[in-house]
């Protein structure tokens, strides 16, 4: 129990990456066309954070994992059908708008309230995990704000690795410029770790873990607190798709030598 962590993973849903996204204007600000109908997935970097959290908890007996998610209740329920079998966690849902144009300050405020409501939280053991950026807003700000509001002043972003030492201190690798990592040694929890991809593959589905999770997920969803997440005063002048459709030249049946020559000429141009 020396390093029994309380790992809180903040992560929500984003539109499935394979979907075509189209912005529309609504009275509540910009949104996605048919947003509620779009298939959703767990935010990829938050997913890595969840898998790393589960792995860390496994290596440190006595540790617990919570997944705190903001989103429409029905979509969160759908999301849990795929996520619940991946890792053991206690689900803390917050009902609210998880769209990319919504305010990270409002979002952070809702998450802080939800985290502070977790019974038996010991800040000296807390590791706050999440994706370093989302695939929706992509600002890398929510986790930072949540951490600061909770009084956690050791924050790491773009994390690919955490290695815990026996004394409770840990080293962290963060992505920095120049295709390398910055290595830091932190005295111990509490800390914020915004994950990049980490090093773990996506876990295979485990039906037993899913059954165990679902027992707490459904009651938690029924009791999900509503949060007001809005634009925070931001005035959007325009939201548009990039006009970058190219007129692709498809080259078939060209001899390899000729293709190679053309590529080299292009590179050298």
């Amino acid at each position, binding site marked *: 129990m020396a390093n029994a962590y309380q790992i809180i993973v903040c992560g929500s849903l984003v539109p499935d990456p394979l979907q075509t996204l189209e912005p529309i204007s609504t009275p509540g600000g910009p949104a996605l066309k048919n947003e509620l109908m779009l298939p959703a997935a767990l935010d990829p970097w938050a997913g890595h954070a969840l898998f790393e959290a589960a792995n860390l908890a496994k290596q440190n007996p006595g540790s617990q994992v919570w997944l705190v998610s903001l989103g429409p209740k029905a979509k969160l329920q759908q999301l849990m059908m795929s996520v619940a079998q991946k890792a053991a966690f206690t689900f803390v849902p917050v009902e609210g708008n998880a769209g990319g144009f919504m305010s990270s300050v409002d979002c952070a405020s809702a998450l802080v309230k939800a985290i502070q409501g977790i019974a038996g939280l010991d800040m000296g053991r807390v590791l706050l995990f999440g994706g370093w950026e989302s695939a929706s807003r992509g600002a890398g700000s929510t986790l930072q704000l949540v951490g600061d509001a909770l009084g956690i002043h050791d924050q790491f972003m773009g994390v690919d690795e955490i290695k815990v030492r026996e004394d409770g201190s840990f080293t962290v690798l963060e992505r920095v410029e120049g295709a390398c*990592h910055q290595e830091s040694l932190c005295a111990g929890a509490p800390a914020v770790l915004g994950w990049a991809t980490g090093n773990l593959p996506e876990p295979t589905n485990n039906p037993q873990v899913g059954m165990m999770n679902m027992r707490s997920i459904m009651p938690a969803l029924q009791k999900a607190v509503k949060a007001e997440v809005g634009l925070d005063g931001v005035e959007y002048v325009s939201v548009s798709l990039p006009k970058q459709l190219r007129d*692709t030249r498809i080259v078939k049946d060209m001899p390899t030598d000729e293709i190679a020559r053309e590529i080299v000429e292009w590179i050298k141009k």
Partner: protein
Amino acid sequence: MEKILLLGFADQASSKLLAEGATVAANLAASLGCSWEVALIGEKVQEAANTLGGSGAAKFYGVEGEDFAFARYSSDLPAAEALLKESQATVILVPGSSRGNRVLSALAMRLGGRADTHITSVTAKEGKVLANRWFYRQRMEACFSRPQRPWVMGLEPGNVAPQTFSASSVQVQMLSVALPDAAKRTKVLGLKYPAGTAQTIRPDAKLLFVAGAGWTKKQADGQIHASEAEKAILDFLSKAQASLGSTKSLVDQSGEGNAVLSFMTHLNQVGQTGSTPRHSKGLATCCHGEEPHVVGWRFVTERRAVNTDANCGWARGKTDVLYVADAFEVMKKVNEILSA
């Protein structure tokens, strides 16, 4: 009346970013008809401040010392907070390095303001500051303004051509920031580079070469040729001085026990969960060109792809030229020509 502050770091990684930030700050100040200032954090800031001596900045502030030499949230944040309080600026431009992005949202919040990151342009229209940034991982772009001040903006690198400013000795107003022990719980140990000798990521290269999972799949003879793939790719990177990118599926293979390219790491990954590099040209090989991957190509200007499938994602308007061919053969020949 707005007051603009360029907040940056005086470290090796930041000199180009500072010049870009100063260019944006000078242009915005000229549009708004207001002054702008510079604030720097680092072990020593005077030299970096001098490089912006001829930039037109009205005043320079600094926080320096050993505690501020390295990127660390718990020391960078109080330093930045002290500088902003001293400057009383309303619009703060922060070159978007990993160091800057790590603190700027909390910084704005502590001062009652707001922050926006990955800003690709800042303009002024009728006295109003407007910012542009991408949403949904480079899939749509928005222009917006916000009422809160201070407004801290993290500037996405590579969006402006940095002006060359004449250097001159400037007077820096140094602020003293004492860190409590609680702010020293983290010690930066240094930088770690990926294992192996091959330098595969070159952010300043003209060409991005992207390898997809096809390189490690069974080829026409029913066999996997991972070692040949490695040789062809490394040869090409060396000869063309290109930077190597990869699809998620290829880098994930190392964790899933499949055939792998030994030099490939998650740092190479381009796309939805990878990087969005800025290169003038990009050559994709053995990858399908589906949307999650191609969002990472948003800022690659000229694009070509080699794929055996004429109906792959690249064919749907995502590349300028799609060569329907075997990348093993093509790259072998390309390497021969480059060697000649």
